[in-house]
């Protein structure tokens, strides 16, 4: 009887842990504690690193500022249309993300070109068409090269560079970066690995279920 009671207790404990074990995604980047006075009270809050404002042009020629992503969860990668190495496999995997969320209003995909010289708006549009992308859930953005490179390295934490010795002339890491509605980095996944991309799709669902801070 005592053994039985012990067993029941163990099961109860285990299920209690499980109940509390609802997964939350980590928050990446620098953070700092900020103390401010609200309504006469001193409050200390944590301020996380966020993606700074930007203004680029998408494959339709529309001007897109980071405001257009307010209230959206989005996935970002860096690519160029003439990329012969890892891009095709990245875009093949990103298509899975696209197909999973293309009808979800608050989830988007943002692919920044790192070769704005060759990837003009018509080139990006043709690329999107051939990839089978329509609508506004996946944008291919083109903008000032230095700004894009700085965004990649400082904000999205993805390495990109121009290198004449590399195939295609550019080097970039194949990460898919997950950004939450407050523009914080919440995950980074190897875009060439279908298993990690499956995890990304699962994590987007986790993030969607997260309450948004007002």
């Amino acid at each position, binding site marked *: 009887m005592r053994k039985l009671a012990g067993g029941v207790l163990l099961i109860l404990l285990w299920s209690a842990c499980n109940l509390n074990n609802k997964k939350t995604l980590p928050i990446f980047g620098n953070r700092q504690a900020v103390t401010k006075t609200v309504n006469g009270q001193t409050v200390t809050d944590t301020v996380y690193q966020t993606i700074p404002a930007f203004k680029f042009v998408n494959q339709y020629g529309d001007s897109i500022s980071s405001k257009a992503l307010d209230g959206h969860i989005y996935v970002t990668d860096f690519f160029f249309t003439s990329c012969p190495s890892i891009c*095709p*496999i990245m875009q093949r995997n990103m298509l899975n993300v696209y197909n999973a969320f293309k009808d979800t209003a608050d989830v988007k995909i943002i692919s920044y070109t790192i070769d704005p010289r060759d990837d003009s708006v018509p080139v990006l549009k043709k690329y999107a068409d051939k990839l089978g992308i329509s609508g506004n859930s996946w944008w291919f953005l083109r903008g000032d090269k230095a700004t894009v490179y700085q965004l990649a390295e400082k904000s999205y934490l993805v390495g990109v560079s121009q290198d004449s010795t590399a195939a295609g002339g550019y080097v970039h890491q194949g990460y898919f970066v997950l950004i939450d509605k407050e523009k914080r980095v919440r995950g980074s996944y190897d875009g060439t690995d279908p298993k990690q991309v499956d995890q990304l799709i699962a994590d987007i669902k986790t993030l969607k279920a997260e309450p948004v801070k007002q």
Partner: protein
Amino acid sequence: MKLKVISGICLLLVVLVWSCQSDESIEFNRYYSSGIAVYQTHCQNCHGANGEGLNGLIPPLTDSVVLKTYSIALPCIIKNGLKQQITVSGKLFDGEMPAVSLTPIEIAQVITYVTNSFGNKRGLVTDDAVAADLAKCAL
């Protein structure tokens, strides 16, 4: 007695044919399995693990008719890349395929793999055949 002789001859023929085939099939298996590794390293990123290509960007390798039409040109296309447009499975592709640096035997292995996978069934392609086709590359 007569029946025994006939059935003996038949058996001998069967064994002969079978042993000849297995010689070629050993060679085929050797090319095919080496071809898998060549494909994974040099082709799979773009053409996909199942030769499915990438929508309108990269042609699939599942169109047996096209593979047959281009059978002699295949070694040259792999070695030198492809700049001109090509229609595969009824779709026009106008992107550029980069040249792949491979030896004739690697080209033979990967062609043996591709043309006997993804629903294709061409049989063995030897390095001699590939070398002969490469000599005719229009450059």
